[in-house]
C-alpha cells in the first residue's frame, strides 16, 4: 500500500496471519494480536484488550502498535527479491508402514490408509490419460485471492489419484475435477462442503452408482473419485492445514469423500445437468458445487399429503434455512422427479421458476442473516417487505439420483461453479 501499516488480528488467526504474510512476501510484517474474539464483546471489554497485552508477545498492545508504525525498519525488513518455496524431496524411501505414517504425519492424507504412490503405480495410473505427465492441468488455492494459487501437472494429479485408491480409468474424471480449480477444503471458518455431479456415458463405463445408496460407500469409482478430490486439494493447493490454510471451526464430515453424484439420467424425466450447462448428452462432464452441505428432505411440509405429495412445496420449505451466499442444489430421487412432472413441472427450468417466485423472505429476517448485505442492499427497504431468496431462477440447480425405493429428495445451500469436460482428459 505504500504507507506504514499495523495489522491487527485476533490470536485465533495467529498462524494464518503469519503464514499468509510470509506467502505474500512480507514474512516480517509487524502484525499485532488481540485476544479472541472481538465480535460480541462490549466496548469496555474491547478497551480492556487495548490497555492489556498482545497475547502472543506479552507486550503492551498499544505500545506495540505505535512501535509498529514508528520503529525504523531492520535490514531484514528492507530485503527484496524472490524466494522459492520448497515442497520437500521428490521421493521418500522407507518401509511401507513407516511411509504410511510419514505421509499421514506430514499432512499429505485424509488421515487414513493410502495406496503408496510408487513409480510403478504412477506409470499404471498415467495410462488412464493420453495427456503428458508434465502438462499443466490448472491452478487452485484454499481461497482465491486470499492465498496464492499453486499449479499442478497431470503427474501431480495422478500421484494423488493413486493415493486415493483410484483406478487408471478414473483419472480423466479426477483431472477434470482438478481443472475446475475448486478446492474441496475451503479455508473459510464456515467449513464448506463440495459436490461434483457426473454426467454422460462414463457413469456406466466406470460402473458408478446412481441407484440405491448413490451418495454412500457402495461403489469404488464414487468413493475413490471423491477421496481423490480432497487428497489433491491438500497436496496440490496447500489446502487443509489447520490454523493456516484451513480455519473451519467445526469442520465438515462431507470433506472426506465429497458429494459425488452420478446423475441417474436413464430414470430421470428431465434434461441432465450437463446438457443444461450447454454440453451434449453423450459428452462426459463434471459439474462442481460448493456450499453448506445437503440435508434430507423427509419431514418437509406437504410430503404427507394424500394422494399426491406436494414435492415442490416440500422443496421450497426445506430451503427456508438457506442464506444468500449460495444457491440451491436440489437432489431428487427419480420418483420425486417423476412426481414433479405429474404436478406440472415438465422441466427443471419450470420448477426453478416456480421456486424462485414462491420462495420469499421478509427483509427483516434477511437482514439478520450472515451476508445480509447481499440480500437487502438497500437500507430503505421496509422490514416487512417480502423479497425473493434468489434474484433469478438460475440460482437453482437440480440433479436426479437414487434407487427409487422411496420418493425422497435432499436440498443443499450450494452454488454451481463450473462444468468441465472429462472427455478432454481421456
Amino acid at each position, binding site marked *: 500500500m505504500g504507507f506504514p501499516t499495523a495489522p491487527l488480528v485476533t490470536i485465533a488467526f495467529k498462524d494464518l496471519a503469519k503464514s499468509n504474510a510470509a506467502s505474500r512476501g512480507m514474512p516480517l510484517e509487524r502484525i499485532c494480536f488481540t485476544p479472541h474474539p472481538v465480535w460480541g464483546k462490549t466496548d469496555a471489554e474491547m478497551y480492556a484488550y487495548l490497555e492489556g497485552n498482545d497475547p502472543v508477545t506479552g507486550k503492551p498492545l498499544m505500545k506495540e502498535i505505535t512501535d509498529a508504525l514508528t520503529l525504523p525498519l531492520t535490514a531484514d525488513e528492507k530485503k527484496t527479491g524472490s524466494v522459492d518455496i520448497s515442497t520437500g524431496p521428490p521421493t521418500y524411501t522407507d518401509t511401507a508402514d513407516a511411509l504410511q505414517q510419514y505421509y499421514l504425519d506430514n499432512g499429505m492424507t485424509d488421515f487414513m490408509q493410502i495406496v503408496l504412490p510408487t513409480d510403478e503405480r504412477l506409470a499404471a495410473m498415467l495410462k488412464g490419460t493420453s495427456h503428458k505427465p508434465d502438462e499443466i492441468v490448472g491452478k487452485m488455492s484454499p481461497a482465491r485471492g486470499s492465498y496464492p494459487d499453486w499449479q499442478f501437472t497431470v503427474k501431480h494429479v495422478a500421484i494423488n489419484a493413486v493415493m486415493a485408491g483410484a483406478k487408471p480409468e478414473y483419472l480423466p474424471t479426477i483431472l477434470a475435477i482438478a481443472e475446475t480449480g475448486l478446492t474441496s*477444503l475451503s479455508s473459510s471458518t464456515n467449513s464448506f462442503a463440495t459436490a461434483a455431479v457426473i454426467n454422460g456415458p462414463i457413469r456406466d463405463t466406470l460402473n458408478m452408482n446412481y441407484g440405491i445408496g448413490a451418495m454412500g460407500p457402495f461403489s469404488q469409482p464414487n468413493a475413490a473419485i471423491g477421496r481423490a478430490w480432497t487428497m489433491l486439494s491438500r497436496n496440490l493447493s496447500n489446502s487443509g492445514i489447520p490454523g493456516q490454510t484451513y480455519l473451519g471451526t467445526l*469442520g465438515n464430515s462431507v470433506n472426506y469423500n465429497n458429494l459425488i453424484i452420478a446423475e441417474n439420467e436413464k430414470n430421470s424425466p428431465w434434461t441432465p445437468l450437463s446438457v443444461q450447462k450447454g454440453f451434449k448428452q453423450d459428452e462426459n462432464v463434471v459439474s462442481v458445487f460448493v456450499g453448506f452441505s445437503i440435508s434430507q428432505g423427509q419431514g418437509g411440509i406437504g410430503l404427507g399429503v394424500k394422494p399426491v405429495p406436494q414435492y415442490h412445496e416440500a422443496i421450497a420449505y426445506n430451503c427456508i434455512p438457506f442464506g444468500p451466499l449460495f444457491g440451491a442444489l436440489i437432489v431428487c430421487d427419480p420418483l420425486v422427479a417423476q412426481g414433479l412432472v405429474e404436478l406440472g413441472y415438465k422441466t427443471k427450468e419450470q420448477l426453478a421458476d416456480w421456486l424462485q417466485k414462491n420462495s420469499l423472505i421478509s427483509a427483516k429476517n434477511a437482514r439478520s442473516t450472515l451476508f445480509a448485505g447481499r440480500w437487502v442492499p438497500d437500507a430503505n427497504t421496509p422490514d416487512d417487505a417480502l423479497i425473493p431468496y434468489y434474484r433469478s431462477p438460475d440460482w437453482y440447480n437440480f440433479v436426479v439420483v437414487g434407487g427409487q425405493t*422411496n420418493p425422497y429428495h435432499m436440498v443443499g445451500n450450494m452454488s454451481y461453479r463450473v462444468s468441465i469436460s472429462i472427455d478432454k482428459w481421456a
Partner: protein
Amino acid sequence: MPHLRITFTPHPVATKTADELRAYVEGNDPVSGKPMMKEIVDDLTVPLNAEETKTGMVNVSVGPENYGPDTPRNLQQFYHDNGMTDFLPIILPTEEMVDEMLAGTSHRPDEVVGKMAAGAYPPWGYTVKQVAINAVMAGCKPEYFPTILAIASSGTPSLFSSTNSFAYAAVINGPIRDKLNMNYGIGALGPFAQPNAAIGRAWTLLSKNLGNGGVPGDTYMGSQGNNLNYNNLVIAENEGASPWVPFHAQKGFKAEENVVSLFRGLGIVPGQGARGTSTDTPKYEEQFSDLFSVFTGFFGGLVVADPLIAVNLKARGYDTKEKLIEWLYKNTTQTVKDYKSRDFAYGFDYPRALKGLEPYATWYNMKDDEVIPRWPHMNDINIVVAGGQTNAFFQGGSLSYGVSVSIDRWT
C-alpha cells in the same frame, strides 16, 4: 423360510391413485409374469411341496477363515468385490496385524462382544477378534480398539436398511480424547486426525461385515445414500473449552470415565443461514431454533456448537445445557396443520395416536391452527460442544440419541 411364497407388485405403491393400484392388482406380478390375483390365491391354497415342508437347522457360512495367499493388490480387489469394504483402500488384516490390535484390549479374542442387525433381520454375533479384524482394515491403531469395541458392543450399525439413508454420530467423552490425540478443535468433524477418521470408518466396516449391513437392495435400501456413512460423525466433545457439563456426565457417567454415545438420524448441516446470525448481539438460541424450525421432529435435535457460542450462552444466563434445551423445546414450534402434512407424521405418529400414545394422541385431536412443539419430548434435544473457536458457528442435526457405552469396560 427360503421358499416363502412372495408376490411382487410394480413399484411404487405409495403416491399411486386408486385406479393405478387397481391396474396393478388386475395385472401381472412383474417378477414371475403371472396374473397377480391368481398367484396370490394359489399361494394360499396350493399344497406345500416337499422342499417347503422341510424343517431343521441350516448353517450359514460366511466363507473361509482366510483368503490368499495372493498379491496385496488382488486381495484388496477381492475385499472390494465381495462388499467387505467402503470401497477405499483397506489395511489387509493379516494374523500379525490382528494380534497387534488384540493387544489393545485385555478381553480375550473369542469373547462375544455383541450382536447387530441392520434392521428387521436376524442379528449376527461377533467376537473381539472379529471386531479387531475390521478395526485393522479401517486403519485403527491398537489404542483405538477399546472405543471400537464399545461401539460394536452397542449393536448399533452405522448402515441401516431403511429407504431413508440414515446418518450416525458417535460422541466421545472423557480423558481418552486426549490420550488418543483426538481432534476437537479446528476441523473437528472433518478429515484432520487419525483417531477421528479411523474410528468412524471402523464403525461402517464392522456394520457391513459383522452386522451384515450395507448390501444394496438387500440389507440397505437407502434410496439416495448418505455421504456421512463413510466416516460417520465422530465428535470428540471439546470439554476443556466448554462451560457446560460434558455430554456423558449428563447421562450419568463420571467426568473421568471414557464413554461413547451414539446417535441416529438424517444428517447434520451448518447453521450459518439461520436468522439472527448477523447481529452485534447474537442470540444463538434463536439461531438454533430457526435452523430446527424446518427440520422434522421425528428425530431429535442435536446441536454441535463451537465453544464461543457455548461461552456466550452461559454468560447470557443459560447456565446449563438443560436450560437451553428447555428454551429450545418451548420456542421451536409448529402448527398442527403443518405437523400433519409431513410424511413422518402420517406414517409413524398417526398409528401411535390411534393407539392412544402421547403426545401424538393429543396432537391429532387439536385444531389445525393450534401450536405444538417441534419434538414430542424435551429430551429429544441434545447439545455437544466442539470446534476451534475461529468463529461462533454451530451445526444442527436431525439426530436422536440412542445409547451411551463405557469405553473403559473394553480396555
